[in-house]
């Protein structure tokens, strides 16, 4: 077809169709995680990044971020202008992030004990050594928050200064368990069989399970939103970055998956005080440092009741439960995040970070 003979409005529509079709067939592509950073420590597949601030450091206590074992942590640094990490650097914080990397078959036996005691623990030391600080803030997101809460229970004393938990499930059997709570019940999910068969749980299994929690929105609505943006010529960058992230998962190390389902979802051991890490009991009441616990009202991955009870379980006097009118990921990015989450985190920490 000779494009010169095509009426401009039709050519325009053709281009838009082509654009949308390419995204649907090839997947969204976007530059993500662009804030400059250096790797200050590695272990197996894990890397500890230190983000390079543009402005001089205003706060002496560094922030150490721990992400979940599934999905990639660049959601915390999605893109310029839409990045929690960039915001915190701009507010004068020294920011570190533990990226678990992508586990291989050889990592299928790694459990929560390994991740908490052999990865988070030495990484905290490295944060202190690199920053020269005497204490640090531990910041956990989603499952990374659960791991951070466990770590803080085991090592509650200094140098731990503050604990920030973001959409962090702790009570896995509240009254309203949500769809994920239902699917993971013992009669419907046998993690032993899955791990024995698959080793690591594939990322598409995890991604599909997450997307199936809201199938109409995730499988149809996402693309409706894309077409709307294309046809109305709205900015696409955030949509592309988010869509890339949603489909860019990592396998769940087998042994950790087994524990996540058996001990957390099915056994609710963290709340019952029955969870042990290499023989050491995990008692949330040991946590005495200031705690900021943030949840999303529309979160369907970590429903609010799963996150809420943390505040009653920790021993801290200085503690706050902060709820945002957002979903699990929505609270992290976009306009809502800029007006809600980011200023809350930076102001709360600003008062407690020297």
């Amino acid at each position, binding site marked *: 077809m000779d494009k010169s003979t095509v009426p401009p409005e*039709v050519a325009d529509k053709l281009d838009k169709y082509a654009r949308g079709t390419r995204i649907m067939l090839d997947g969204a592509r976007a530059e993500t995680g662009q804030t400059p950073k250096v790797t200050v420590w590695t272990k197996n597949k894990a890397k500890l990044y230190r983000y390079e601030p543009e402005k001089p450091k205003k706060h002496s206590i560094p922030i150490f971020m721990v992400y979940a074992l599934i999905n990639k942590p660049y959601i915390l640094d999605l893109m310029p202008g839409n990045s929690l990490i960039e915001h915190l650097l701009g507010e004068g914080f020294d920011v570190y992030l533990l990226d678990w990397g992508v586990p291989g078959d*050889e990592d299928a036996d790694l459990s929560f004990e390994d991740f908490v005691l052999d990865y988070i623990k030495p990484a905290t*030391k490295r944060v202190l050594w690199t920053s020269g600080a005497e204490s640090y803030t531990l910041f956990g997101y989603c499952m990374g928050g659960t791991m951070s809460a466990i770590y803080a229970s085991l090592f509650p004393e200094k140098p731990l200064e503050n604990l920030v938990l973001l959409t962090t499930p702790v009570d896995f059997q509240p009254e309203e368990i949500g769809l994920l709570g239902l699917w993971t019940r013992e*009669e*419907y999910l046998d993690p032993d069989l899955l791990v024995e068969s*698959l080793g690591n749980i594939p990322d598409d299994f995890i991604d599909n399970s997450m997307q199936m929690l809201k199938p109409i929105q995730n499988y*149809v609505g996402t693309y*409706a939103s894309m077409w709307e943006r294309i046809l109305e010529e709205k900015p696409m960058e955030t949509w592309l970055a988010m869509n890339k992230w949603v489909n860019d998962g990592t396998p769940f190390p087998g042994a950790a998956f087994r524990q996540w389902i058996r001990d957390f979802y099915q056994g609710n051991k963290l709340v019952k005080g029955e969870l042990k890490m290499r023989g050491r009991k995990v008692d949330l009441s040991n946590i005495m440092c200031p705690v900021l616990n943030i949840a999303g009202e529309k979160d369907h991955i970590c429903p609010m009741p799963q996150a809420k009870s943390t505040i009653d379980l920790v021993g801290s006097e200085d503690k706050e439960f902060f709820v945002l009118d957002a979903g699990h990921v929505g609270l992290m990015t976009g306009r809502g995040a800029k007006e809600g989450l980011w200023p809350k985190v930076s102001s709360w920490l600003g008062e407690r970070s020297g």
Partner: protein
Amino acid sequence: MTNGFETGSAEGSAAGEEKKYADPYGLYRRWFEAWGETVQGEARASMGAGEIEELWRRWFAGTAKGLGGGSGKDGYAGSLGSLWEQMAESMRKETASRGDLSEDPVEFFLRWYGETSERWAGVADDLLKKREVLESNAHLQENFARSYRELRHASEQNLKNMQIPSRSDLAGVAKLVVGVENKLDRIEEAFGEFVYGGSEPATAESVRSLQERMDGLEGKMDRILAALEKG
């Protein structure tokens, strides 16, 4: 036919890995082709409402197959097969009721989605909570896991017979490498403790104490060995 779908650069500069998806979206390609034909004046007269309906039907059938097909590990997606069919039927009815093709198909889809998505989301939520769906998925998942395990064992055995390293052999070697790395990490950490951790230098007294403990340990080892030799 040359069209914009086949030409043009990729969306932005690529970052991250390219990921191919199952393609339940053949309809868009067909739309595009239909557009091209329309522009060329080849197909306007022949593109009837029936064909549009057929395209919707195919798209939803493809979507249902793409989401539910293949592996039991994605079983909950498969449970939505009937829902996709209901949605396709809803779109078909909507198309048929309009009786003409004046609306752009994508705009039609967006309007239809905007008007009905909340209802479908509710239907999907209810469906996925049903006991029979939960049980059926659990069963599907179990069968998938068992079959996969058998297949894996058979493959491993075949590779072993052919003296070709299997995936688990490679994982075993990789695990050894990780073990060595861990030892190096511990040495590095010990040095780090010394450099950054404010370790105090050894005093003559602490060295003497260590020497005494070593002597004690050697004495114990000698006694154990002597006892073993006698036994």
